[in-house]
Each structure stands twice: as structure tokens, then as C-alpha cells.
């Protein structure tokens, strides 16, 4: 089956940028600066409030029209849509996990005379990341599923090739789509086990209230 490399490329890029956006937005929403907080809340609510497929079409068809700039490629539009969307969802996980580390941890760090940055880096963050792991794993599977949407903006992923096959031989449709589903499942399997591992890790080594 062709197109797998496209699916995987989109997944990896989306995951990297998705986590990046999640951390940036999650930390910004905890900032004391009201402008920064307001701006990131706006981003998070917009992307959580609308559909991924709408965002994808908007980025691909509408943005070039609005600003007269071309995003260059459908890869960029696809990765941007998926990572901005899931980044918004995951930023809530980042924020929630940091807030869930008990206040006593930060107080103990203060009592050891750590600076604000050291408290975050040495004490709060390592614990919060452990809490984020299972959810991050779940969202990785969601992102894998979401990569199937890029076929709609003309990327040649597995689904795109499947559609081509189907249109050349209608009776092959059951085999083709079943195969595609199985392919996605095989790609998801390691992620499913990774998520379970993450759950095990997160169960120990965290002080939450």
C-alpha cells in the first residue's frame, strides 16, 4: 500500500508541533501577563470550538485568499491544522497537570531557596509531565486518525491511494477500505501500548492534591 510514508510524515510533524503548541499555550495560560493569557485563551477556545475539518479547509482554502499568501503546500496546511487543533486541546492538559501538582511541592522548593525557574524546572515540571503522559498518548492516537483528513486537501496518503484504487475498480472497495483500516490499526498498536506504559509511569512519582 502506497502513501504510508505521507501518513507517517504528517503524524510525526503534527505530533512535534502539537506538543510544542500545547506546552507554549499551556504555560502562557498560566502566565501572570493578562495580554498573553488572553491571547492564548482566544487561540485555545477558537480551535476547541470548531471542527478540525473546518480548520483544515479554512487554512487550505481561505487563508491564502484572505492574506493573498499561499501556505506553500498542502503538507504545511495539514500539519498546521492538526497541530494547532490538538495543541489547543493538549494545552489544557499541560495547564491542568501543572496546576495539579500540589502547592506543598512549590512551597518545599521555596523553602530550599529555589528560584522561580528552578522550582518549575526541578520540581513542578517533571511531576506534571508524568501526569500528562497518558493523555498525550491518547491524543497521539487521535492525531493518527486525524491524518486521514489530509487526503481531502489532496495529499497522497494511504486513504488517497485507496480512493484512487476504489474508483478504478468499484468491486474492490471492501478489500481496499478494510486494508486501510487494518493499516491504521497496525500503526495505532504501538501507540496504544505506549499509552498504557504512560499510564503506568504516571501512577507513580507524583504528588497531587
Amino acid at each position: 500500500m502506497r502513501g504510508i510514508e505521507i501518513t507517517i510524515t504528517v503524524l510525526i510533524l503534527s505530533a512535534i508541533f502539537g506538543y510544542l503548541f500545547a506546552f507554549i499555550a499551556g504555560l502562557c495560560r498560566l502566565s501572570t501577563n493578562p495580554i498573553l493569557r488572553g491571547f492564548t485563551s482566544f487561540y485555545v477556545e477558537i480551535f476547541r470550538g470548531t471542527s478540525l475539518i473546518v480548520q483544515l479547509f479554512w487554512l487550505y482554502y481561505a487563508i491564502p485568499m484572505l492574506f493573498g499568501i499561499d501556505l506553500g503546500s498542502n503538507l504545511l496546511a495539514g500539519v498546521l491544522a492538526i497541530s494547532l487543533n490538538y495543541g489547543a486541546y493538549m494545552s489544557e492538559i499541560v495547564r491542568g497537570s501543572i496546576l495539579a501538582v500540589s502547592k506543598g511541592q512549590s512551597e518545599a522548593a521555596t523553602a530550599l531557596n529555589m528560584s522561580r525557574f528552578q522550582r518549575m524546572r526541578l520540581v513542578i515540571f517533571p511531576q506534571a509531565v508524568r501526569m500528562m503522559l497518558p493523555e498525550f498518548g491518547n491524543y497521539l492516537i487521535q492525531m493518527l486518525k486525524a491524518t486521514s483528513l489530509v487526503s481531502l486537501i489532496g495529499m497522497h496518503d494511504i486513504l488517497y491511494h485507496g480512493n484512487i484504487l476504489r474508483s478504478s475498480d468499484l468491486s474492490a472497495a471492501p478489500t481496499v477500505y478494510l486494508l486501510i483500516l487494518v493499516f491504521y490499526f497496525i500503526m495505532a498498536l504501538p501507540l496504544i501500548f505506549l499509552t498504557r506504559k504512560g499510564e503506568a509511569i504516571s501512577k507513580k512519582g507524583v504528588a497531587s492534591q
Partner: protein
Amino acid sequence: MSESVVTKEHSQDTQTENKDVIVSYKNITKSFGDVEVLKGINLDIKPAEKVALIGPSGSGKTTIIRMLMTLEQPTSGEIIVDGKNLWHMEKNGDLVPANEKHLREVRGDIGMVFQHFNLFPHMTILENCMTAPIHVQKEDKASAKERSIEMLKKVGLGDKLDNYPSQLSGGQKQRVAMARALVMRPKIMLFDEVTSALDPELVGEVLEVIRDIAKEGEMAMVLVTHEMEFALDIADRVIFLDNGVIAEEGTPSEVLEHSDNERLQQFLHRFRS
């Protein structure tokens, strides 16, 4: 913050004070919302002095030491630590509320042990002790490790170095917490009801460690405690806090055995029965 700005004259006055005082609370008040928890506390602590703070819950005793640890900001008044103003700093000749940098400079001599231990669950016992010396005091790793091991041995946990906090009993956790604070070589140690969260049979081992530390003598210690016998035993001075003011203070025997303060008698009665 603005209400706690004080005049410069007042502060210089405090700088030139008696070298025999390491911590000085000057007219400290603290309100949470509309509730005034502390209504003007004046308290001097001498180097190496052991002070026990007792009083009913809600009397503000924990707030007193939390303000010294910079976990709580006073509403008004000043705290002087080793000649330095804790919550205020000088800027262009004015006293302004302290920033993080100033707080870090002054609170470096203070250590604290908490009621709920607050060990770092993602670090081993040894790492719990080593982290701050390495990152905060910039000590080299080998010597921080060596001192941490030594300190953990001293509190009787030399065989648990690589365990995680979740694998220890409450009493053991609290001993680690003490070792963690002691490795920083504070001049002042604060104990916030350190035995309150422990099962009764584990209280003894923790008090034993505190007693050992107290005997070594060079640190000032402030203990918020409900262990009256223990306070009687190790404290140089006992302070009874009631309704946000110091209602009685003196040597342990004066306060715990010979005071005729009615509220204090009621309070003690509840503990002895």
C-alpha cells in the same frame, strides 16, 4: 503590597539593632480577606534559641513561620533576618516591596520542615537532599552527595538512599525532610507541626531526631507544635498565641506550668485530658 511600605528612618533604626537577634518581627499583621489572623506580632529570636509556638488552631502560629519562609506575605509590619529586611528592599533610597531576587538572598539562611513532608516524589531520597545544594548553592556534585549521605545516615536512613518517598513510612519521610533542610546548613530552622500528620507510634522517632538537632545547638529553631511535653523538654522559650496576638510567653516551665492566663489554662487542659 503598597500598604506595607515603611519609612526609611524606621528601617535604619532596625539595621543598627542588637546583634544578638537573628530574627525580629516588628508589628506584623496578616489578614486573609476580611479575617485578621495576626494582629501585631512583636517577636525577637536569638541565634541558637529554640522557640516553641503553641496555641489553638487558627491562632496564626503557622502563619508566623510561613511569613518568615516567604510563603506568606505580611499585610503590614517588617521582618528582619540577620540585619536584613526580609519583605522590603532599598531602591533609589526608598524602601519598596522585595522582589524575588531579594527574597532569595535573605531567605537563604532559613530552612523549613512541613506538616505533610512535601518530599519530591519523582526523586530518590538522596536526590531529594542533593538537589538544592547543587542547584541553589552551586556546590559541586560530589561534595553535595557526600554531605547528603552523611545527613541521611544521621537521621537513620543511610540504607534508604535510593528509595523513593512513596516507599517510606510517614516517620521516615519526615526524617528525610529534615535531612533535606539540614543539608542546606540553615541558621534558622522552622518546624510546622511536623508530627501532626503521623501515626502516633511514629511520632517518637521524629521527635528524637529534632531533639538531636536541638542538642547540637548552633541553629535557631522555631517549632509550631502540639507536643507539650516535647516543648517543655527542648524549648528555651514557649510562646502562647491566641486570637492573633502573643498572649503569654516565657520559659517552658513559666508558661506550661505556672501561668495563670485563663485561655492558656483552657488550652492546656484540653491537651492533658
